[in-house]
């Protein structure tokens, strides 16, 4: 990615994140219903990100080595393995399946 584009990404995300963390200091009486509802965002978005990562360029689910990688990471996460163990195990499964079975 070109430098100016990367800078735009960083500054865009940074300024929005700053505003969100600062909101409470300026609007401490925001209705609690608003705050409560934002709790649903992280699980919905992370699940959506997992799903989108498993789709191909046409937007349909694409079966490749990422599927077993996600399944293994989910099992490890359920067993309370640390984040890095889930990530490395997922990458390793994908790398091994590609090297040994020449899968996509």
């Amino acid at each position: 990615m070109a430098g100016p584009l990367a800078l735009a990404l960083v500054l865009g995300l940074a300024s929005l994140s700053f505003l969100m963390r600062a909101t409470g200091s300026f609007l401490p009486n925001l209705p609690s219903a608003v705050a409560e509802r934002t709790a649903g965002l992280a699980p919905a978005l992370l699940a959506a990100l997992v799903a989108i990562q498993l789709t191909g360029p046409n937007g349909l689910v694409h079966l490749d080595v990422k599927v077993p990688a996600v399944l293994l990471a989910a099992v490890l996460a359920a067993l309370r393995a640390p984040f890095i163990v889930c990530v490395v195990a997922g990458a390793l499964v994908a790398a091994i399946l590609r090297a040994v079975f020449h899968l996509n």
Partner: protein
Amino acid sequence: MPAHRHLSYLMAGMRAGRSTREILQAAAPIALAVFVFGASFGVLAVAAHLPAWSVVLMSALVFAGSAQFAALGVIVAGGGVLTAIFAGALLNLRFIATGIAVARSLPGGRLLRSLLAQLSIDESYALSVRAGAPGPPDGRTLLVTGACLYAVWLAGTLIGALFGPVLGDPKRLGLDAAFPAGFVALLWPLLSGHHAARCAVGGAVVALALAPFTPPGIPLAGAAVVGLWLAR
């Protein structure tokens, strides 16, 4: 007054709780995890062809692992910069809720509090809530752990970004599969939350339904709407 004296003066005026040493001891295992998380972000971001300086700058200015991971995941999947910002910012919307909770526990006027609130991430917030249970979050725990985790997050990213290129071809190493694996690992601990499981299922279903027909970003926006709708 030197900056560190000023900060300790502010903190002395706050609710007396655990000593700084006790707080740091509680934060140490979390600091190790945050360091490794930062290093893995640095490695993956450099492998996705982001300039190393921008990767470190992002960790310095955004300081939110899941949002940075999400933005990077969009770039890796071929999405544009605006979609990536959108994905990361949506994940950070939860900081509005934590920001309201911590604002009352922080010292100083609005401006200073809004600056100090930048030290709130999931981990520092969780520790500050437990420290101050059952009342409001403990501001001192938030600041001490937040500052410690900020330093560790930045150092981890720097080391990952410096040593990432040594690893070699990202796809041969399965680094593209690291993203969905990482998102699952971030998602799992959240599922115990109130209504979190139905938000997750709803978000995934809506994203998959929209993905074949809409440009990148729309499936995530749909998932966000469903998450907000199903949260209560």
